[in-house]
């Protein structure tokens, strides 16, 4: 068969969103690839310039449907840096706990989509079922299930609801039980291993040069996690490991995310134990001073950065968002070339695409 271009997207089961991956195939082997993004561009950066600072929190939520809490947290960190606000310690603990719940929920959603991509129906439904546990917890905490609108500039919106500690401990116990089951289900499956081991290898140098961050980079053997390397919030108080793997293939990326869920469970337990009493919110000023604020967090998908410029009014002069997936997707041609057409879903699914934050 001669070489031909295939458009995988914008409407394609592989995309998990709205983007287009053009792959050039020779028979079933990929010889070239070219990602095209921008179908979901909503102009969020520009939109923010016309909103007051508190009004932007829900918009930041809508950057990523998979882990919206991380983004509103990041936005609040940025504006707190801009306004020089000291957040109460209880709020920091609540934020860290909620974000780790969000990280587990996001990784579970990734696992579900990944299993669905590989044709493993059980993997899809079981992980989505267990994601419900954490979504329900976050619903009890924040009041909504997908876009939480929970962090505020200077704290969080509410204190913990009644019995929340008890429910969280139960959920974490349940999750640790389930994670063992997933490891049996996925690692125990010969076909799953055949589809993952040695597929889509991203070498360490390539990953660093292309600017890939997050689990995809850690799977290539780079020990880089902002929670450890540039600690923010109360992460220095927490005892957890940075998970990394040396292989850089799809299986390593899967393992990194699975192990991160274990670590997130540890962090949630610690945050609950160490959580102090006290206020959970301070009043933020209406207007930001002239100056800049920078926030960097470890998103479930990589390093997320926001940069805000204040001009003395109640609206930001400029808000720049650095999306981890926008960088990761540009590494696609590097990873894809040489593998089979069926590996496209494994590789691109393994990178955990989230087009909302990508196109902004």
């Amino acid at each position, binding site marked *: 068969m001669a070489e031909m271009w295939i458009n995988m997207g914008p409407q394609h*089961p592989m995309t998990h969103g709205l983007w287009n991956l053009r792959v050039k195939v020779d028979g079933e082997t990929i010889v070239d690839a070219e990602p095209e993004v921008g179908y979901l561009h909503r102009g969020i950066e520009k939109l923010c310039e016309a909103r007051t600072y508190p009004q932007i929190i829900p918009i930041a939520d809508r950057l990523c449907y998979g882990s919206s809490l991380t983004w509103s947290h990041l936005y609040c960190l940025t504006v707190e840096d801009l306004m020089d606000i000291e957040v109460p310690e209880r709020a920091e603990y609540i934020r860290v706990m909620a974000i780790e719940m969000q990280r587990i929920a996001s990784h579970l959603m990734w696992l579900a989509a990944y299993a669905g991509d590989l044709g493993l129906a059980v993997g899809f439904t*079981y992980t989505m079922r267990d994601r419900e546990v954490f979504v329900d917890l976050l619903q009890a905490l924040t009041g909504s299930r997908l876009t939480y609108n929970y962090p505020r500039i200077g704290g969080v919106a509410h204190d913990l609801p009644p019995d929340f500690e008890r429910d969280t401990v139960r959920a974490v116990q349940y999750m640790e039980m389930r994670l063992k089951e997933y490891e049996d289900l996925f690692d125990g499956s010969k076909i799953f291993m055949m589809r993952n081991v040695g597929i889509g290898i991203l070498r360490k140098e390539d990953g660093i040069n292309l600017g890939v961050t997050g689990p995809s980079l850690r799977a290539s053997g780079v020990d880089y996690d902002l929670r450890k390397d540039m600690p923010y919030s109360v992460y220095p108080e927490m005892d957890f490991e940075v998970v990394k793997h040396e292989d850089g293939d799809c299986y390593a990326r899967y393992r990194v995310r699975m192990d991160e869920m274990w670590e997130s469970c540890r962090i949630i337990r610690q945050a609950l134990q160490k959580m102090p009493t006290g206020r959970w919110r301070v009043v933020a000023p209406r207007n930001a001073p002239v100056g800049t604020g920078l926030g960097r967090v470890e998103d479930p998908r990589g390093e997320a950065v926001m940069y805000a410029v204040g001009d003395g009014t109640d609206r930001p002069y400029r808000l720049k968002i650095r999306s981890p997936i926008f960088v990761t997707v540009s590494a696609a041609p590097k990873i894809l070339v040489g593998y089979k057409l069926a590996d496209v879903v494994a590789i691109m699914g393994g990178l955990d695409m989230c087009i909302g934050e990508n196109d902004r």
Partner: protein
Amino acid sequence: MNLYQFCYGIVHWLVGLVNNIWYWLGDFLPWYFGDLFTAIGNFAASEGHLWFMTLLVESVVVVVIALINVLNFLWIFRKLSGRILDFYGPYYVGYRIGGWLQNLADGMKLFIKEIIVPTKADRLGFLLAPVIFVGSSLTILAVIPFSVDFGISTSESGEYVSAGALFALAAFSIAPFAILLAGWSSNNKYTLIGGMRSAAQMMSYEIPLILCAASVFLLAGSFNFVEIVDAQSGIWFFIPLFIGFVVFLICLMAEVEIIPFDLPEAEAELVEGWTTEYGGMRFGLFYMTTAVRSYAGGALATALFLGGWHGPSFLPDEIWFLIKAYIVFTVFMWLTWSVPRIRIDQMLVFGWRRLLPLAVLNLLIAAALKSGGWF
């Protein structure tokens, strides 16, 4: 009474009924019309015509059996997938019978959808492919008997097609040709790759499948389903030929194209593979035919390895046959939901390097058993 005699009885009774009215009408007409009427009536009552009509009625019976099985199969498929995948499955349509009517509702919905032929598609191939796919799959059922008395392809004296098992295997393997035709004529890159995959895949599973069936033919000494099942009255063939049984089931899963081997469809990477351009009832027919093929696969495995209609006598033979076929299908579904999809090059390696040697080994075991005088 076998099925041929049963259908012959129906046709005979119907022709007699119609002829009574026919002759009675002829009495009112002038003599030249009346003679014509009498001649037509006599032709209708002739043996040749009755034979032909009996064959037609038997074909209808094939289709009806297939459709009833399809409804049951899809219902089991959906309910079982709900049990395994942690959801309810069909529930509200046909509430009192466990959502059994859901498939009828879905079929009706597909039926009223517009039929679309893509502008740049090869029209003849595009329209012919579903016919070949569905027709060849329904043909399999014609030769598979449910019991000694209840089979489709019987002659007047109750004899079955002598090489029925071969015919079933042959009819089974026509489908990849239809898939290739559909993939090519749809003029779409996904369907093209799907069709090509189907052709490549067929090479790797068809040979082990035939070899495993050959070991059964060797032990039974016949290609005839009735004789094969009779040969299993002592011991079912899956016990001496266990390797062959497993290989046969794996190959059947590839033949039916369900998940570890559904490469031509591969919804994640090829959208819906070779069925991408088909919509409406044509897609419904493909969906239905997959269930027909699953049933036929289960029936083949039952007849060749699981002792056919043998079983304790508190249930009729036909029921035993159906139960076994449904159990094989259930195992298929169970596997389908719990494993990921294999890749095409891995499929070829798996077929040629694992299944084929095992199938040959199985054939050697069968030959040794036969020459040792065990069967």
